[in-house]
Each structure stands twice: as structure tokens, then as C-alpha cells.
């Protein structure tokens, strides 16, 4: 198979890469679209409702209709807002959410994946940039709810990034590499998905990633019963859509990361790699929706304390245990 990755750069390979990037963009957008649809369906079913069913067969075009609606909605920039930052914030939030997709290995023949030596850290580093967008959005709106929401959101994402990062160290320790492809290969080689030996790390990851994604029960920044909508209160139309898009892009990316790091990525018997990957991603996403259907949300002080006092020590314990096992074994 022709591999663009280890060849000198030529026009065809550039075009191939470009196509690859566009394909992933479309794929991600598609996944996001139907993630939202699936979310509404699953939530509906779990709440004894039917969920969207009007637009298109089985309501399949519901999200597309929503997006179109948002696209033609008037774009309101509040008079008191800081105009420049207000407009910039959604972009700052969105760009990294898409860029992190570049490292996620979607299938065994990782055609569309940059094989970076620092894959895991790449994800972590970029996702930290989104915090700026969120915070600036809250600040630039010049709205009290938005400011509180933005600050909370930033503080929350900061706090949970640490246990998230630490929980990943265990996986890196298992594989001896930061490269996501290598990590998948290592799991395949060991014949054991990391979720088993790294169960503690997995739990920490699961919780911390939920918080990173601002999803229930950690959806405080947007806590509609307190802050109405959090940092994007003032956003309308397509700017708002970009915040939503960012959120669901990260959901997808995080699902991909989870699948890759803990669930063996594209490896699995019988089925083709990309299908395995899709199944695992869906499982993670389903889990998120399931949580959303079940849990009330934390209170902000409990949330912060939880990260530092429970998750961080847990992650450290996991790390030391893994280290001990690894050192002895």
C-alpha cells in the first residue's frame, strides 16, 4: 500500500493529505451531527420519550435542520460586549478541538493519522487551549452568568486536566511510548486491553474526561438551573453553534482517545479495525449519555475538591502501582 507518511513530499502526497484532512473534517462533522441526534434519542428513550422523529425519516435530519436554523439566525453581539474577543472566542475554542483529531488512529491502516511521537501529550496540550476560548467567551460577553460560567469552566477544566494527564501516564508506562499507534500496537501485542491492567487509571480517566467535556454530572459551567447557560449565554446563531460543535468534537475526540488508550483502539477480532474503533467510540459516547440521563450535577465546590482530593491521589496511586508492577515484572 502506498504510504504517504514515510515518503518525501510530492504534490500527490500533499493532495492526499489535504483530502485526508478534509475527509476527517467531514467525518467529524458527520459524527457530531449524529452524536447529537443519538444523544437526543437515547435521552428520550431513557426518559420514556420518543425523541426527535419529525425531520426526515426517524428524525434523522433533525440536527441538520438545527444547524441550518442556527446558520440563518441573526448574529447578535451585545452592546456591552468586547466585540473583538466575543467574535474570536468561538474560534479559539474550536480550532484545537478539530486539530486533536489529527493524531487519533481511526483504523489499523491509519491513513488519516499523523503518526506523532508525542500523540498523547499533543492531545492534552491542545485541549488546554480551548480553555482560553471558553474563558474569553465568558469574559467578553460582559454578562454575569457568562463570567461566572467561564471562570468556573476554566477552573474545572484546569483541575481535571491534571488527573486526566496523570491517568494517561499509566498507559504510557505500559506501552513505553507516547505514540498512539504504538499504544494500540502494544495492547494488541499484549493481547490485553489496557482497561484491565489499568482499571484504576481507566476509572480516573473516565471521570476526569467527563469533567473535561463538561458533561453531566460535571456540567456546571453550563448549569442551566443556575447560570442559565454558562459562558455562552450571550451567544446566538452560528457562534453558539461553534461552541456546541467544539463540545461534541471533543466528545468524539475523547471517545477516540479512550478507545485508543484503554480499549485497544482498532484492534479486535473478526471485524475490520475501523468498525471496532467505531463500536468503542460509540460505547464511550453512549456511556456519557447514559450518565447524563441518570445523574444530578455536582456542586461547584464539591467538584473542585473531588478532583484534587480524590482523583489526583487515585491517579498517583495508580501510577505508583503501575510503576511497581512494571519494575518488578
Amino acid at each position, binding site marked *: 500500500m502506498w504510504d504517504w507518511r514515510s515518503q518525501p513530499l510530492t504534490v500527490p502526497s500533499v493532495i492526499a493529505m489535504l483530502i485526508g484532512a478534509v475527509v476527517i473534517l467531514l467525518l467529524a462533522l458527520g459524527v457530531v451531527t449524529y452524536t447529537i441526534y443519538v444523544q437526543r434519542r437515547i435521552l428520550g428513550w431513557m426518559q*420514556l*420519550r420518543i425523541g426527535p422523529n419529525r425531520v426526515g425519516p426517524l428524525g434523522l435530519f433533525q440536527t441538520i435542520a438545527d444547524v441550518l436554523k442556527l446558520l440563518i439566525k441573526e448574529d447578535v453581539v451585545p452592546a456591552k460586549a468586547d466585540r473583538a474577543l466575543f467574535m474570536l472566542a468561538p474560534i479559539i475554542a474550536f480550532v484545537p478541538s478539530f486539530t486533536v483529531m489529527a493524531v487519533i488512529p481511526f483504523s489499523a491502516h491509519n491513513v488519516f493519522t499523523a503518526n506523532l511521537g508525542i500523540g498523547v501529550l499533543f492531545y492534552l496540550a491542545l485541549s488546554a487551549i480551548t480553555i482560553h476560548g471558553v474563558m474569553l467567551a465568558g469574559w467578553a460577553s460582559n454578562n454575569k452568568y457568562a463570567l461566572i460560567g467561564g471562570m468556573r469552566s476554566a477552573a474545572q477544566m484546569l483541575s481535571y486536566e491534571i488527573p486526566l494527564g496523570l491517568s494517561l501516564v499509566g498507559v504510557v508506562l505500559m506501552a513505553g511510548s507516547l505514540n498512539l499507534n504504538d499504544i494500540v500496537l502494544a495492547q494488541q501485542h499484549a493481547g490485553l486491553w489496557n482497561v484491565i491492567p489499568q482499571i484504576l487509571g481507566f476509572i480516573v480517566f473516565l471521570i476526569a474526561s467527563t469533567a473535561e467535556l463538561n458533561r453531566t454530572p460535571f456540567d456546571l459551567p453550563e448549569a442551566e438551573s443556575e447560570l442559565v447557560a454558562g459562558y455562552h449565554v450571550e451567544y446566538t446563531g452560528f457562534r453558539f453553534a461553534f461552541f456546541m460543535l467544539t463540545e461534541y468534537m471533543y466528545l468524539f475526540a475523547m471517545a477516540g482517545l479512550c478507545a485508543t488508550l484503554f480499549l485497544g483502539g482498532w484492534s479486535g477480532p473478526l471485524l475490520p479495525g475501523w468498525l471496532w474503533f467505531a463500536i468503542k467510540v460509540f460505547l464511550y459516547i453512549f456511556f456519557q449519555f447514559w450518565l447524563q*440521563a441518570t445523574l444530578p450535577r455536582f456542586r461547584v465546590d464539591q467538584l473542585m475538591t473531588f478532583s484534587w482530593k480524590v482523583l489526583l491521589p487515585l491517579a498517583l496511586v495508580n501510577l505508583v502501582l503501575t510503576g511497581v508492577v512494571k519494575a518488578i515484572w
Partner: protein
Amino acid sequence: MIGFLKGLSVTLRQLPKKKVTLQYPDVKPEWPERFRGVHRFIPELCIACNQCARICPTSCISLSGERDENKKMKIHTFDINFDICILCDLCTEVCPTEAVLMSDTFEMAKYSRDDLYLDMHWLHDNQLKYEQAHPDRFERARGEAD
């Protein structure tokens, strides 16, 4: 931790259950016989006694009658301002001839408040629609009368 898992199992169990919502505009709800929807009115029975207008707590009924050739009061105009009607059912309660009754019409969204002034004809049409929709109730009523 346990409680949280139990909660998860509860929501998961609901997933395959039968849904309780109606496909509303496609499937209309079944209203019981006593349902208090928009009034229906039978002009023939009305004796313009004005009791309904007097009992109405919001004064939304206005009517005028005239005596016909038999010196009987006959209804001339009968309007209900649905903007303020609270569907309390007191008018039907006091009506000595059962000329004002409640139907099961409940969809009353209008673009203008003016459209909410329901006159006698509209209300009578509502009666006819009701008769058409529930012939069984009339038969039963007749049967009981017999």
C-alpha cells in the same frame, strides 16, 4: 458508588420500555366525556335567561335575547370572549336548558385576540362538530332520556 450504579441501572431499564408520549398532532389525546373544552352552544334551547352571564366569574359571556312571536325569549347574540374565559364550567352548571355545554375542542391558538371572540355561530358549529365526533354519547343520552 453503589447508589450511583443503581441509578444507572434504573435509567438503562427504562430504555426499552414503552414510551408514554403521544405523537400529538398525528394522534390526538382521548378526552373523557366530562372534558371541559371550548363551549358549544345550542341556540334553539337557549331562553336567554342570562344566568350564565351572571354566574361567569370573569364576565366573558355577553348575550342578548329578544322575545319571539311566542313571547318566548329567544337568543339573539351570544358571545364568549375566550381571551378571558377560564373554562370553569359554571355557565353550563347553571344553564336551566343545557344550551351551553362544554366540548372537547381544545386547540385554540389564534394569531389575533379578535379571533378569540367566539360568537353564537361558531359555538353552534362546535356543537355540530361535537355531535359528529361523538355520536355514541348522544345516543346514550337519548337512551337514558327514554
